């Protein structure tokens, strides 16, 4: 089914980046305030779904050549290895660590291993959602 949605396609090209940036913002906001990997991932996935609606599956897979299953696996690996890092220090699994660092340009910031875990969650959510949507939408 090929339709010519000029308005949808034009706005999508702009809106997608806004959604994507907002999802990144939500993702980082989750550090101390509501937000985080799950919501951020869902937002990103909804942005990609908007792309799928405006264009077709083939165009989007050419533009974003991502294997979402691999993405899910990498996300899970990242989350697990962050949690499993504790094993090497012989403290209970899932023990996180954080400290304050002086970074160039950003000043004093706290860096937390929970962030890495959340990145894993983000990747898993995007990966799983897109896998499901692709497998439903693949045979239209």
């Amino acid at each position, binding site marked *: 089914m090929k339709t010519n949605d000029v308005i949808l396609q034009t706005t999508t090209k702009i809106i997608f980046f806004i959604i994507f940036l907002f999802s990144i913002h939500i993702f980082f906001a989750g550090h101390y305030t509501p937000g985080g990997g799950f919501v951020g991932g869902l937002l990103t996935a909804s942005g990609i779904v908007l792309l799928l609606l405006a264009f077709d599956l083939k165009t989007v897979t050419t533009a974003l050549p991502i294997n979402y299953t691999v993405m899910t696996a990498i996300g899970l690996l990242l989350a697990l290895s962050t949690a499993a890092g504790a094993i090497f220090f012989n403290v209970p699994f899932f023990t996180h660590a954080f400290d304050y660092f002086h970074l160039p340009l950003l000043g004093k910031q706290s860096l937390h291993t929970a962030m890495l875990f959340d990145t894993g969650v983000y990747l898993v959510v995007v990966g799983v959602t897109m896998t499901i949507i692709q497998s439903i939408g693949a*045979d239209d």
Partner: protein
Amino acid sequence: MEIVMCFVIGFLFMAAVYLMLSKSLLRIIIGTGLLSHGAHLLILTMGGLEGSAPPVVSHGVTDYADPLPQALILTAIVISFGVTAFFLVLAYRAYQELGTDNMNLMRGTEDHD
């Protein structure tokens, strides 16, 4: 407030049961969605609705909401999201393969006498 929530939960469960008893597969899936919504609301209500501030550490706030039910709900939502999505994919495949979404026509097995 708890009483209102109880009615809402009861209504969700009622609608879920009604939908799950229907024959169309899609309605059944929506029913399972409503069922898990009801269960999530139940966790929230059962944890108690006291506490005015969100359970995030900030200065000068002592009256926190109980964070545990929220954590449980988040987990349960993620899980039911995954299951519903899987169920939808499966229903779609079954519809393609079997040519029907009517549960009545999916009864029995081919080789059963």
